[in-house]
């Protein structure tokens, strides 16, 4: 007993010792791993395994399988067909109805090792062979070639009967690229590829997969070259370039032909100066004297010889509603020499009030109905405004202007100027004031009254641009006093433009006459100036002739000025108040003096001093001095009482 046990133990030890002693690396084989089976057509399948270490001894491998539901263990029928470490299951032993349980056993002299068993369902391990007979052809289709790829299913797979249903996939890439582009082809065996690169070389491959299974390997590469088809595009581009060049040439030629009109359109010429008398050539030559010679009016400042002309030009008598006199404003002269500013009655703040209807109406509440008044006022206003704003020189100028104007009136006999609003037909020499037209006179009155009573306001009305604005003031007068018909007088300032420019038939003779701003001071210089009414035309035109000043007034004589009188106003008693102008210097001196006498308007003071003389000088005009004084103080003079001077 003991011996047998000992033998067994010894046997065990011997076995172990042999194994240990002989094993400088000898050991049972390693476990086979990675058993994978594949079926190419769902009728047969093959299994491969990965052998482990052989333990240094020759090792044999055996594959055993067991079918589902049965305990019988079978061994692999074919180790050869599929290569090393493989087992091939033929059709007879392959069943799609049952699972297979497969085990691989590695055996060597030291022992054997079993692998992990694997369950196989033949249907799910189908991996078909790659598609066969892949044909790639280049097909020309309207100059846009495309590739047509066709193939056959692998022979082993029975797709004809429907035993296996395969789906295919095509991939292609350019010859020198690395990225494949994969395209799914479904179950069909023909595939077309568009959008090819002209002149490129493509590699095409196809593979397939059953509905439950694995993708096959890619078929061998088929190489194909795409012909060039781009040159036709180039010819089209050449055509486009030629066409565009042709159109461009035509456009350039057209522009060249119409160069001037195009240039005129794009760069309109700068309007040159439109001054009469200015010669551009002279300008370019640079001789300033010559240039401005034309600008300079020879008779500016107006000399004594020209005063009469001026007077004649601007003396107008207003005839109510019936007469329209074309007033010669002497625009040419004026424009050249004085640059009449039409904007005297514009929207400037200073002058805007002149436009004001209400203002004028308010101011005109006095007895000043005559246009004379307005005239006088206007002139007075001008004078005042000027006095307010202007420099002394301007005042001198204004006085001179006025002086210049006065003689003109007398001398100009041909010119007939109506004084419609101011004078009614004079029965005698006396100047009877014309029946005043209502409205227009009102306008006149307004102006005058404004001038008389509100010199300040008038000054605001008539902003004085400067010495050159004498004309402008005249224009103001035009408007202020006359133009009854158009009722522009209500807005003397604003209408100044229009009158000057468009209306020659302003009836305010004395407006222009009085255009030169009356300086109150100036007026007062010569109170004793007399004006003779030269004649009275049947048209109720009064021509005034300046009378040589009486000896009383030495100023006038010394200056030998052609004093002119300005009809200040015509009262309702048909009194004509004429204002006289003295020399500038002396007027100025006198006027302030006179001004002191008078409370308000300095011009009235001037006038007041004048009126007595006027009374004496005016022919046919009966004036009462005291009355005149009164009236003068109020800015209103009865012409009838004024003129009493018979002398011529």
């Amino acid at each position, binding site marked *: 007993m003991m011996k047998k*046990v000992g033998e067994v133990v010894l046997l065990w030890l011997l076995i172990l010792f042999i194994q240990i002693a002989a094993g400088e690396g000898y050991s049972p084989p390693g476990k086979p791993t990675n058993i994978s089976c594949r079926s190419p057509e769902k009728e047969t399948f093959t299994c491969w395994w990965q052998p482990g270490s052989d333990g240094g001894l020759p090792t044999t491998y055996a594959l055993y399988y067991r079918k589902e539901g049965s305990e019988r263990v079978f061994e692999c029928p074919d180790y050869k067909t599929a290569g090393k470490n493989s087992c091939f299951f033929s059709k007879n032993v392959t069943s799609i109805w049952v*699972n297979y349980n497969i085990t691989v056993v590695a055996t060597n002299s030291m022992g054997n090792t079993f692998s992990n068993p694997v369950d196989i*369902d033949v249907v799910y391990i189908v991996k078909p062979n790659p598609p066969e007979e892949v044909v790639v052809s280049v097909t020309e289709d309207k100059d846009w070639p495309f590739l047509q790829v066709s193939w056959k299913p692998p022979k082993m797979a029975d797709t004809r009967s429907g035993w296996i249903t395969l789906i295919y996939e095509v991939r292609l890439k350019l010859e020198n690229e690395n990225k494949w582009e994969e395209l799914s082809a479904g179950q069909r065996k023909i595939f077309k590829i568009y959008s090819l690169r002209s002149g490129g070389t493509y590699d095409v491959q196809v593979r397939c997969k059953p509905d439950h299974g694995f993708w096959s390997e890619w078929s061998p590469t088929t190489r194909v070259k795409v012909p060039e088809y781009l040159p036709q595009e180039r010819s089209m581009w050449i055509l486009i370039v030629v066409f565009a060049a042709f159109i461009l040439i035509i456009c350039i030629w057209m522009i060249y032909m119409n160069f001037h009109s195009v240039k005129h359109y794009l760069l309109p010429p700068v309007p040159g100066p439109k001054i009469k008398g200015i010669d551009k050539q002279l300008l370019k030559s640079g001789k300033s004297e010559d240039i401005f010679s034309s600008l300079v009016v020879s008779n500016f400042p107006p000399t004594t010889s020209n005063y009469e002309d001026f007077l004649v030009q601007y003396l107008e008598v207003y005839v109510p509603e019936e007469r329209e006199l074309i007033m010669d404003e002497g625009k040419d002269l004026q424009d050249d020499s004085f640059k009449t500013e039409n904007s005297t009655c514009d929207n400037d703040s200073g002058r805007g009030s002149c436009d004001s209807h209400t203002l004028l109406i308010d101011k005109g509440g006095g007895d000043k109905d005559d246009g004379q008044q307005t005239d006088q006022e206007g002139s007075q206003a001008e004078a005042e405004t000027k006095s307010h704003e202007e420099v002394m020189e301007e005042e001198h100028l204004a006085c001179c202007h006025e002086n210049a104007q006065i003689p003109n009136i007398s001398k100009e006999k041909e010119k007939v100027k109506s004084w419609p609003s101011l004078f009614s037909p004079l029965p005698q020499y006396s100047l009877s004031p014309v029946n005043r037209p209502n409205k227009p006179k009102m306008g006149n009155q307004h102006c005058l009254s404004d001038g008389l009573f509100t010199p300040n306001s008038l000054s605001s009305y008539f902003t004085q641009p400067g010495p050159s604005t004498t004309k402008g003031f005249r224009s103001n007068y035009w408007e202020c006093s006359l133009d009854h018909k158009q009722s522009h007088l209500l807005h003397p300032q604003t209408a100044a433009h229009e009158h000057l420019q468009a209306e020659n038939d302003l009836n305010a003779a004395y407006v222009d006459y009085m255009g030169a701003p009356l300086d109150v001071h100036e007026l007062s210089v010569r109170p004793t100036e007399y004006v003779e009414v030269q004649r009275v035309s049947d048209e109720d035109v009064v021509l005034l002739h300046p009378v040589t000043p009486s000896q009383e007034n030495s100023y006038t004589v010394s200056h030998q000025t052609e004093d002119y009188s300005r009809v200040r106003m015509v009262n309702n008693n048909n009194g004509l108040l004429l204002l006289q102008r003295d020399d500038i210097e002396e007027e100025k001196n006198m006027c302030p003096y006179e001004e002191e006498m008078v409370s308000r308007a300095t011009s009235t003071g001037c006038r007041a001093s004048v009126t007595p003389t006027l009374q004496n000088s005016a022919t046919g005009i009966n004036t009462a001095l005291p009355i005149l004084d009164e009236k003068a103080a109020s800015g209103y003079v009865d012409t009838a009482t004024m003129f009493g001077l018979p002398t011529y």
Partner: protein
Amino acid sequence: MQKTVVQWGLWALLLWPQHLAASIPLDCRDDQGNLSRCTSISQEKLLDRVIHHAELIYRVSEELSSLFEELFIPFPFRLQSNQAAYSCITKALPIPSSKSEVQQISDKWLLHSVLMLVQSWIEPLVYLQMTMERYDHAPDMLLNKTKWVSEKLSSLEQGVVVLIKKMLDENTLATGYGEQGVVQNDVQPEVLESVMRDYTLLSCFKKDAHKMETFLKLLKCRQTDKYNCA
């Protein structure tokens, strides 16, 4: 004695891993699993495969029959669909032949009917396979189809057997119903008779294949919706 016991014990110890390995249940993984770990194929899948099998067989048999008819049968001799029923070899089988009968039999009988049909046609198809080669100018397609059908039928038989075992838990023997002596091969018939006989055979087989397919599909329908199947 003790030695043998000890030896057996040693061998048992050595072989122990295998037993252990064999008895471990494995997870069942469906379709895409590289190696499906299921111990057995599910019943639905099996039935689907059997039906698919039967469909294929019927389709190929239809092609085979029409091809044979075109090639070898003159026009006046062509049978109509309702004429060859009584001359089929399987007319003696207890198979339901009308729709009403089919609706009445149980699943078990349905399966057994299919099995009977399949098993009864295995031999004749082998015979057909042999006779086809005797025809002159028989195209390869004819021969291949015949061969294919024969093979698939055998496979179908195996499937049905497995199906029966799975559904009914019955063990049946394959080719149990196959009648050996159906076709007489010893007599060399006349050409025309032989041709007509073959033609009749193919026609009958085509009909029976259609029956197999129909039964199996009905069976499948009964699995899902018992009371709504036609």
